[in-house]
């Protein structure tokens, strides 16, 4: 008997560097069930907006990419029986890429037309540029396709992890990748398309689909594969999210996304960890008893999460705050700006933390280095230009 797929999970977390700079998360991810009965299929997707000034709407591009793949797979599911593997391989190689790209293009065009910039600037899909990787999970097979520098790792029941798909660009330059915003890239899609039949004896236990920020956070590919094996043991929701926060903070600083699915059946003991083990582990990793205390509380707020993250890496506190000098000034000059930040703290957690610290925050009492750094920034912001000028000899 073939083991069934369990419900997948997905999570995107803003990169430590983007958070510091007050930029939005340019990653998006998706995990959902589509269809019903014998035509039931699970979809996992991750998308990574290119970021940078040229791709200034890539956060919208990545969200639209996830919508486009969901709608396109839903449409394909209505026309193609899951038992027809050849046809699904063709879907992954050709028909889905064309449909996804078309839907994505239409969606970002609609978004552009609603923007004031559209009155003076012609539409360019490049500003929405992003990658997209997706996995389809049927009872008898799994398949993947996509474009760009996403990675797919398979993990066996024995805990062995293998890279199943990665981008290989000939003569690539720097951070170059292929993109949804490019025309004539069907060859790149086809190179990433594959369909694998599942058998009763198939050792595959889990699939981990991720954006490049995770692999680039690891010292070596060996570490990346090992990390994927550890990630499947995290419970979805806050533990997974907190795990990703740790990965970007200690690693590349890039936005990070994963979509994970496992098959039913016994899991290797090498991979089994409960939430308690996770919490103890992170304490052991250096976050300290205060972190443990935080973890025991129900769902921390974005500001509390920010405090946890900064307090776990005190050497990064100064770098994070020094890039927000203007925000400290602005909050002094326009106290109402604090209300906007505190109203939606998830949009800019560090900004909200700074705003909340203006009048002294109880949350900060548990993290003296952060409190001291925030106090120092406020003192600096309150100084007049004359006071800031270096003393003349």
């Amino acid at each position, binding site marked *: 008997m073939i083991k069934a797929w369990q419900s997948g999970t997905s999570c995107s977390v803003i990169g430590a560097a983007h958070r510091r700079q007050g930029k939005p998360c340019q990653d998006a991810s998706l995990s959902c069930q589509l269809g019903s009965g014998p035509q039931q299929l699970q979809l996992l997707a991750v998308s990574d907006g290119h970021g940078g000034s040229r791709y200034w709407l890539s956060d919208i591009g990545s969200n639209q990419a996830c919508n486009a793949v969901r709608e396109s797979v839903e449409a394909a599911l209505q026309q193609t029986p899951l038992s027809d593997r050849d046809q699904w391989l063709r879907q992954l190689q050709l028909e889905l890429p064309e449909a996804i790209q078309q839907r994505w293009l239409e969606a970002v065009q609609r978004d552009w037309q609603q923007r004031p910039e559209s009155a003076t600037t012609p539409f360019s899909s490049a500003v929405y540029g992003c990658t997209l990787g997706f996995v389809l999970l049927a009872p008898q097979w799994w398949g993947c396709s996509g474009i760009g520098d996403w990675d797919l790792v398979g993990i066996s029941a024995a805990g062995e992890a293998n890279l199943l798909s990665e981008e290989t660009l000939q003569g690539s*330059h720097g*951070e170059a990748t292929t993109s949804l915003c490019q025309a004539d890239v069907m060859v790149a899609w086809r190179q990433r398309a594959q369909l694998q039949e599942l058998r009763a004896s198939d050792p595959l236990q889990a699939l981990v689909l991720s954006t490049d920020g995770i692999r680039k956070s690891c010292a070596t590919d060996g570490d990346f594969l090992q990390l994927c094996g550890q990630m499947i043991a995290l419970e979805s929701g806050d533990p997974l999210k907190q795990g990703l926060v740790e990965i970007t903070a200690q690693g*590349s600083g890039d936005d990070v996304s994963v979509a994970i699915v496992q098959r039913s059946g016994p899991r290797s003991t090498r991979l089994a960890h409960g939430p308690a083990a996770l919490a103890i582990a992170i304490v052991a990793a250096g976050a300290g008893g205060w972190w443990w205390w935080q973890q025991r509380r129900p769902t921390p707020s974005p500001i509390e999460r920010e405090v946890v993250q900064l307090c776990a890496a005190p050497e990064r506190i100064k770098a994070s705050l020094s890039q927000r000098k203007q925000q400290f000034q602005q909050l002094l000059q326009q106290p109402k700006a604090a209300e906007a930040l505190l109203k939606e703290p998830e949009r800019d957690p560090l900004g909200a933390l700074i705003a909340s610290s203006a009048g002294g925050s109880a949350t900060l009492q548990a993290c003296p280095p952060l409190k001291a750094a925030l106090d120092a920034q406020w003192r600096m912001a309150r100084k007049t230009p004359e006071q800031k000028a270096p003393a003349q000899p």
Partner: protein
Amino acid sequence: MPFPNVRLSNRPLHFIYLCDCSGSMAAQGKMQALNQAIRQSLPGMAEVAEQNPEARVLVRAVRFADGAAWHLAEPTPVQELQWRDLEAGGITAMGEALSLVADALQSPPMEDRALPPVLVLISDGQPTDDFDAGLSRLMREPWAQKAVRLAIAMGHDADLEVLQQFIGPEPARGGKSPRRPLQASNATTLAQYIQWASTAVVGAASMPASRVAQSEESGSNIPLPDLPPTLLDPTDDVGPLVW
């Protein structure tokens, strides 16, 4: 078991100076100006590194005169760097210097996950060895192709053509671009260029955005920051014409 129980790491950013130490650099205080400019730029570079903890800025330097040799062979965290003065004397083995850097950019020792390196070539003259062979060797290395390549011409005897070849194709539009050799004709301008390369460029290279492969935007592997306002045109010099 701790999570994450793997080696997570920030990404190395290799910054390599290629410094002309030919005899002509001894004239008019050029060597002294270069040593001083690099030394003075280090605190700013360290500050940029501190503001971008996701990048680990590692500095190296090659000197070239009668031959080429590593002046600072070990990739050194900028915070720990103590600049040792270069000395002038000899001819201009620029091609050999490029070959030496090509060896260092092989993978390994270069890490797969490194950020695009920054190479800064500083010269006051013309290569006296086989520059083309050196450049060709360098550009065979994928990491050299990915690198941000900048060139600073010290004085008006510098060979702008070879420096442009090192940088890559000249931008189509005329005028202001750091994709042309930066021309310094006095110590002040040189210091400003070195400061710009070691702070603004390092900052940009520390947090690169993804880039669409084979797009027409290329020309640089990271979007180069603007030159400082006083240096918007690389051919517009500041201060007196000394060199």
